[in-house]
């Protein structure tokens, strides 16, 4: 390969992977994680939860279906670099509007292709997720290694402020392919959705479940939320360490018991913190669309989409006998869901909104609605 299209990924432990440049000519720094999903790279690119990360896809052929406007999960791309085995610059799909190459250039995201991604994954699996430096063109390896080693850890980094919205807005777009006539029927409820880096498909699913959605910035106070007088409160997914956004857990603590609450991913962790729990950083996290989430109530196993590098500590939650762990990840027994035995709240670590990933747990949006309805019935 010639130097003009050379690229490299330098890890903080000094390991270097050489490959070919694609995407924008830029540098990327961030925590290197791998995603095991075989579809949905555009949703991954636009998931704000990847802010501050460099994402490696384990499936080798990436770019096959190009990109399109419908599959955007947020207003932009927040990850720092994209690593693939084989970058395909010839998309074929009837919905494709733009190639991955052009898309990455437009969003100023650098990519590297042609590296032994499986070796990278095995490295991260054994050593744990670590920071990396993705660079195009000629690279001074010694300098790059130093630079990668000096990058701050994900622990304690507030990335939510980078991705949340500036001001509140309403959302009304229904799920992909949904029947608009069906949606109009039935009573609608108002939900306030905290945007810690929210994915659009959560908003679409909420609309589909009969909610009028108001999205608010992460820093919105409990009082401001209650002033809107919602029927329920939703806590979104988002990037990084939940402990680094203490104001979020503080606000949620005030809201618990006042309105029914549903949290996903970072929202689940923030709810857990608000309930007095603690989190730990996982070795390399869960990033994929094939995770087995074991529903302890029904005994069933749901195939779930997951994307997190931190997890709630089970012991920290069950100290409070009123908190029930509802789901566990069957692979490593990490906490995947909780609820309160008395108060109207529940949350899951995985992504019922999928996108990308399976729809096995989409019914949770309905459950949120039922939780609200049961509260209304009691009142």
């Amino acid at each position: 390969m010639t130097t003009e299209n050379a690229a490299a990924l330098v890890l903080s432990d000094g390991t270097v992977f050489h490959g070919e440049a694609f995407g924008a000519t830029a540098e990327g720094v961030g925590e290197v994680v791998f995603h095991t999903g075989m579809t949905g790279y555009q949703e991954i690119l636009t998931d704000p939860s990847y802010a501050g990360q460099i994402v490696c896809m384990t499936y080798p052929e990436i770019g096959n279906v190009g990109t399109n406007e419908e599959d955007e999960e947020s207003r932009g791309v927040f990850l720092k670099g994209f690593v693939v085995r084989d970058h395909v610059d010839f998309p074929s799909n009837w919905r494709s509007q733009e190639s991955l190459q052009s898309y990455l250039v437009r969003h100023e995201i650098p990519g590297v292709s042609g590296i032994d991604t499986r070796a990278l994954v095995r490295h991260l699996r054994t050593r744990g997720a670590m920071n990396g430096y993705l660079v195009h063109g000629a690279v001074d390896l010694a300098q790059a290694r130093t630079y990668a080693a000096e990058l701050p850890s994900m622990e304690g980094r507030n990335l939510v402020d980078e991705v949340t919205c500036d001001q509140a807005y309403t959302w009304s777009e229904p799920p992909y392919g949904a029947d608009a006539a069906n949606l109009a029927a039935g009573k609608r409820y108002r939900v306030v959705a905290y945007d810690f880096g929210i994915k659009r498909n959560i908003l679409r699913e909420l609309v589909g479940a009969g909610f009028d959605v108001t999205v608010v910035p992460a820093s919105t106070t409990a009082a401001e939320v209650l002033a809107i007088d919602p029927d329920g409160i939703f806590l979104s997914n988002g990037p990084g360490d939940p402990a680094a956004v203490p104001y979020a857990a503080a606000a949620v603590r005030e809201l618990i018991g006042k309105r029914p609450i549903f949290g996903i991913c970072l929202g689940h962790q923030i709810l857990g913190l608000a309930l007095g729990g603690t989190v730990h950083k996982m070795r390399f996290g869960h990033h994929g669309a094939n995770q087995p989430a074991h529903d302890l109530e029904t005994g069933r196993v749901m195939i779930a989409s997951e994307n997190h590098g931190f997890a709630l500590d089970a012991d920290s939650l069950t100290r409070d006998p009123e908190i029930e762990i509802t789901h566990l990840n069957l692979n490593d027994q990490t906490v995947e869901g909780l609820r309160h035995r008395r108060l109207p709240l529940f949350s899951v670590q995985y992504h019922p909104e999928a996108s990308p990933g399976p729809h096995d747990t989409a019914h949770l949006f309905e459950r949120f609605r039922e939780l609200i309805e049961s509260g209304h019935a009691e009142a």
Partner: protein
Amino acid sequence: MPKRSDLRKICLIGSGPIVIGQACEFDYSGTQACKALKEEGFEVVLVNSNPATIMTDPGFADRTYIEPLTLDVLTTILERERPDALLPTIGGQTGLNLSIALAEAGVLDRLGIELIGAKLEAILMAEDRAQFRQAMADIGLRTPRSTYVRSMEQADEALVAVGLPAIIRPSFTLGGAGGAIGETKADYLEKLEWGLRQSPKSEVLVEESVLGWKEFELEVMRDQADNVVIICSIENFDPMGVHTGDSITVAPAQTLTDKEYQRMRDAAIAIIRKIGVDTGGSNIQFALNPENGEIVVIEMNPRVSRSSALASKATGFPIAKIAAKLAIGYTLDEIPNDITKATPASFEPTIDYVVTKIPRFAFEKFPGADSRLGVQMKSVGEAMSIGRTFKESLQKGMRSLEIDRYGFENLDITDEELNDRLKVARPGRLWAVGEAFRRGLSIEVVHALSKIDPWFLHQIAEIIAGEARFQQDGDLRRAKRDGFSDRRLAAISGVTEAEIRARRQAEGILPVFKRVDTCGAEFESHTPYLYSTYEQECEADPTDRDKVVILGGGPNRIGQGIEFDYCCVHAAIGLEKDGYETLMVNCNPETVSTDYDTSDRLYFEPLTLEDVLAIVATEKPKGVIVQFGGQTPLRLAVALEAAGVPILGTKPDAIDRAEDRERFVELIEKLGLRQPENGTARSVEAAKRLADGIGYPVLVRPSYVLGGRAMQIVHDVNELDTYMREAVTVSPEHPVLVDRFLPDAIEVDVDAICDGETAIIGGIMEHIEEAGIHSGDSACSLPPYSLPRYILDEIREATRALALELGVVGLMNIQFAVVEDKVYVLEVNPRASRTVPFVAKAVGLPLAQLGARVMAGKKLAELGVVAEIEPAHVSVKEAVFPFMKFSGVDTLLSPEMKSTGEVMGIDREFGRAYAKAQRAAGMNLPREGTVLLSIRDEDKSRIVEVARTLIAEGFSIVATHGTARCLKDSEIPSEAVNKVPEGSPHTVDLIQQRKIDLVIATTRTGDPVAVRDSATMRRAALEHGVPYFTTVAGARAAAGAIRAIRADAVEPLALQDIHRG
């Protein structure tokens, strides 16, 4: 939920002989199911008529019945064994159909046998197209518009509803048998009529065509707690219209966004729930409109299938094994994932490589067969390949096919022919696509002609561009990363393969091995299932144990199939007993050998010199076994040895001594044995001179063949001339062998084992059909049923002499011909033969295991093998043919092998065993009725005895005029009928009117006119399911068998009872 405690004994039904549409994949799934159930402590009763399977080895089940797969045989076995449950979903369509029949006949209810896995209602809802359509409509899924036709009167109405082109699908058939596309009205009517005949229930679905749409498949599993997982998505390279078994397929799906994939996944889950498959795997096929993404459901198989075998191999997730465990009560989360050990089976595999399956065809065996691909499956085998990119995977797959293609070779055809080959799907269209880009056609043009997705086309265009780039820049690393073989790179750069290899080694451009681990490396893998690629990190991590590499047989084809896989699997079992680490190399996804459970390590790789050398370099084995996988690995023997690879067992030089005709003549002379007069011709003139000297008829064939490829009996110089011009290319490098043809000879096959010092006969098989019919196509009996003892002793002596002279270490097979008390040696093959599994089952000796252990250094005495076993019962092997799949093809047998599979009949005497074998092969011998005789002149005297037997058994005879006259001379009554050219009412009329119960028709095979005139009669018998025999020897055996089954009821026998003590 834990294992069910109310079940103790479970019956499994296998899929029977290998046929097109049902191959080794059901041995793989059945073997897995047997192992899983035994592991869980269940008593397993297995019924399968195919002796070449691993599952029918006595150790895999507690009660093994190698018996015909028919309702009454199964009923008897179930009455005797009284299992608690029947698992209907692992034996292909055959096993499923039999299970339906047993349930519908009330047998299961009467005996209190539960269907586990899938209930009857679920099976019927999936299999019955009307019910299936309704079920899909109920859950809001679209199926192609369609309507049922049960008679030709409904043809017009159906056409109005559906429109042209229309798909014609007969109900209740396997491999889409009888499926066809009607393009014009006349075409439609003709195919509809044919389809009605194919369906056992005279029912045809006429369906809206979705030709040219994209085709996808999902493999789904469900447990009794209603957990559902998708194991694999598969995208077809060839668009709708080509049977998925004949399509190139790729896993995972390449051209779906997540939204579209999830929609398909949701549909698949809704379908398995609606159909109500309780536990186990199902295969669901979808068509997708490339213009707008509209999805229609094509079909669902509520059982393990060819695709599920492929999905298992593609992902490392053993679907059949897990299905068996789910059927006995476990849920997915209770079953560990074998590969990771740490995680449960309740997850969806994710793969970090690309899998390509390419079908292999055998049209060269069936001149006159329509090679266009359609909705009826026509391929006989397949190769699978794994690469880190599609380009690598595809090119590995191409060289795995073993059709002497090592990449996108140039095609020497006109532009017009090229257009046609792109437009009409036939075998080898892939190479036409490559050639199109080489000639500068655009992706748009190729897509318009072929409807192949532009994504695949673009990838191929890049491969072709890669060839040109390599010619310019010689960037070897880049080319290897794109999957080019050394051989292809050598061809495009005008050097030898060895030079490319040397350059690679010098520059350190070597493959690494990656693991198939179900999880994209997220977890550590404990099961070494490996493939090669050109990257940074090698995960082979070889051990320092003593190891043996076993080279498998590659894709199934006619002449090389499951029998060789059986041998390779046994080699692994045997060598493990001696403490070796066993390494299997193969690229056939259907097989037991490519189950990662079979050997210590599995290398899923093409069987080419380049790929095998790379494995040997990494593993440094003690030796390589090339003699068990058929011709494929054997062809590599000399080159491997030259490269310094230790070949275990019989030396390649001994193989050469047996295969090289001139050296073979010396060998025979040295030992004072006899062989038919013969010679080797290196030009057309030399062949003519030789044939003149020997005297016609002569048997001609190219040297080094298996399965009788291009072997023919020629009767005069004109035929010889035609053969030399059309069938072979003769040259000094490619000589043609000319042998005297021995008329009316009895052919004998011997399998033996030798450790270099002692040679012991495994079994002597007497062929039923006379010499001149390929041994693979002939029925045979073990022990011989007509040869006298002194002849057999002479054969034994000759076998021992040959084995010791050649220094055979391992297995060998010899073919003899006996003519009037004289024994001739026809052929010596110092390797495992097609008959090894049959012999092993007939005599109760694991011949292949012993062979492998001897090859690795054991002596026969150490293994307790001291004398030939002469069994008290008789075993008959019969061949099974694919004629039904190739409309218009003649069913005459010849020296060219045409059978795809085999069945076995075992009983206490020959007639009964032969009747069982015929029945198992689908020739249900009648007990009464009318027999049609049409006999060529040279056989007329020999048919009299057969006719007398049949008359004595109460049959009446209809005969063509000449035959009738001959019978009359012997005072045998018959009714005369016209031959077809003589006009109606003729033989075919009688067959069509179902007035004939048995056809015996022999024809002068050397006379094209006689063959042509009688072909329609043979075809009519085949298509109307009338048992037919085309040789006197076969007819004689059939008459004897009819007498035997009329005298006394035939009972099924379990192998465990036969070989007890």
